[in-house]
């Protein structure tokens, strides 16, 4: 059985196809001096097709990162109260397929458990960026960062303690507004409950860390 592939052009003379090829590449050559990542509506060859230089000069420029980009996990705290959203419920530690999240729940003087993480460590070098911790978290505390520069020079630097993981909510709202809008209401409601169950000034980010 044979299939005929329609070429949508007529044969004119020997070498016609070669000249057509030169015409196409010539157009690209000339366009590359005038256009850059240009979308021309109605003239796309394929969805998202662009005209002109198809480049982003990375260290100087950067393409926008989509909201759902899965970077490395970070912890959030509230800007106004500096209260950490995490309650040390261990959901993320259980959900983590490689078991790199280590949480120690805080206790008061009598040994009674308080809903905050006394220590929270993530081993960044083993992280798969799978985002299961984020899905498991009911408090909207652990989310995925959009940082692309994750290289470190020493292995110890990949052991991220709580102080290094904490970011304000405003930061996350800036990098992933649509995701934060989805979980905002639930997270803030639960945060209010969490703060009530904690002694004052426990589970808060020190003012120094929060401000700089």
């Amino acid at each position, binding site marked *: 059985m044979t299939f005929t592939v329609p070429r949508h052009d007529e044969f004119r003379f020997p070498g016609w196809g070669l000249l057509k090829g030169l015409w196409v590449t*010539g157009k*690209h*050559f000339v366009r590359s*001096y005038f256009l850059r990542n240009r979308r021309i509506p109605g003239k796309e060859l394929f969805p998202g097709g662009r005209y002109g230089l*198809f*480049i982003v000069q990375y260290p100087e420029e950067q393409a926008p990162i989509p909201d759902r980009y899965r970077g490395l996990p970070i912890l959030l705290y509230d800007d106004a109260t500096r209260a950490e959203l995490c309650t040390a419920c261990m959901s993320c530690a259980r959900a983590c397929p490689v078991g790199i999240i280590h949480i120690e729940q805080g206790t008061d003087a009598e040994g009674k458990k308080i809903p905050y993480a006394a220590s929270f460590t993530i081993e960044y070098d083993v992280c798969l960026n799978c985002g299961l911790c984020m899905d498991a978290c009911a408090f909207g505390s652990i989310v995925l960062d959009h940082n692309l520069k994750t290289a470190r020079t020493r292995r110890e630097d990949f052991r991220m303690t709580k102080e290094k993981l904490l970011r304000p909510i405003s930061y996350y709202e800036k990098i992933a507004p649509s995701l934060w809008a989805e979980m905002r209401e639930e997270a803030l409601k639960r945060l209010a409950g969490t703060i009530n169950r904690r002694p004052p000034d426990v589970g808060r980010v020190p003012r120094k860390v929060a401000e700089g």
Partner: protein
Amino acid sequence: MELLIQGLESLLGAFLPYWVIVLLAFAIVITLILFFPTFLFMLMTWLLRRGIARIADRIGPNRVGLGPFNRERTRQRWTLWGLMQPIADGIKMFTKEDIVPEKADRLLHRIAPIAAIVPSFLVFAVIPFGKGLVATDLNVGILYVVAVSSIFTLVLLVAGWSSNNKYSLLGAMRTAAQMVSYEVPMVLSLVVPVLFAGSLSLNRIVENQGAWLGLRWHIFYFPLGTLAFITYFTAALAEINHTPFDLVEADSEIVAGYVTEYSGMKFALFFMGEFLNAFLVCALATILFLGGWQGPGVQLGGAWGYLFSVFWFFLKTFALYFLLIWIRGTWPRLRVDQLMHFAWKRLVPVTLVNLLLSGLVVIVVRLFLS
């Protein structure tokens, strides 16, 4: 050459004997001829990479410039469009390990890359770059060019055989067959401008195209000269293993062909040989068909005429080189059988008929019109 000797004699004649001055003149010219192609090669690699990149909607190398000399170290200025990239490449090539296969013929393996660039350098000696700017004006210039540049075929075989590698040998055999086949139509189309000019000297051929303000080029001798130009360029593409005929570097079949077992600077030398051959093909096409250094303005006396002649020569040559880049960014390569078919069944008959008709026309013109 004579001008240079006279100039040196007037400067140093009081201190040095005549034969030293002649030697000195030759040393200067030879040094220029050895240095010029090296810089040309660097410029051409840069041009090729930038050109191909533009065709593929990219920028190409644009980082390596004079960064360290920039006092503000902003990296944005002084990059010179990446013009210093070839120097970085060269340094990298020098620092690479030089690998010789265990079972290789060591002597030939070492000789081949050197021999690969020698013919190209030799051809530079007879190329007229401008009015009076030719190292030696041989009266059998074209014969010399064709003879010397065919050495490259032998070098390929030496490189492929001495590597003791099946890909190298296959690549070399294939390329040798291709180059021997395309030599025939190439030379047959070279003879057409020789017939028009009535001389084998490259300088005489250029001078023959000097009428009409330096625009009576052989390519305008329609249809014979035009056809000869097209066939020459096609055959020359195959001769330098350029894109539609670049079966040597058909990676999917024979890895890198005859350069498979070469690394570091030896590889770079082969690379250089190929680039210089590409330039020479463009330069020869310019000289034979596009008027060489002839063009409007060359008729002026004094320095302006010389400047214009050099300008026209390099403008035409690099325009043709741009065509090579364009082709390289566009066309796919042929199959081996298609390649041979095209050479022997299409190009050779066309060039033969073209040569016959050209001869007839030249005789008729000589006998009846002049």
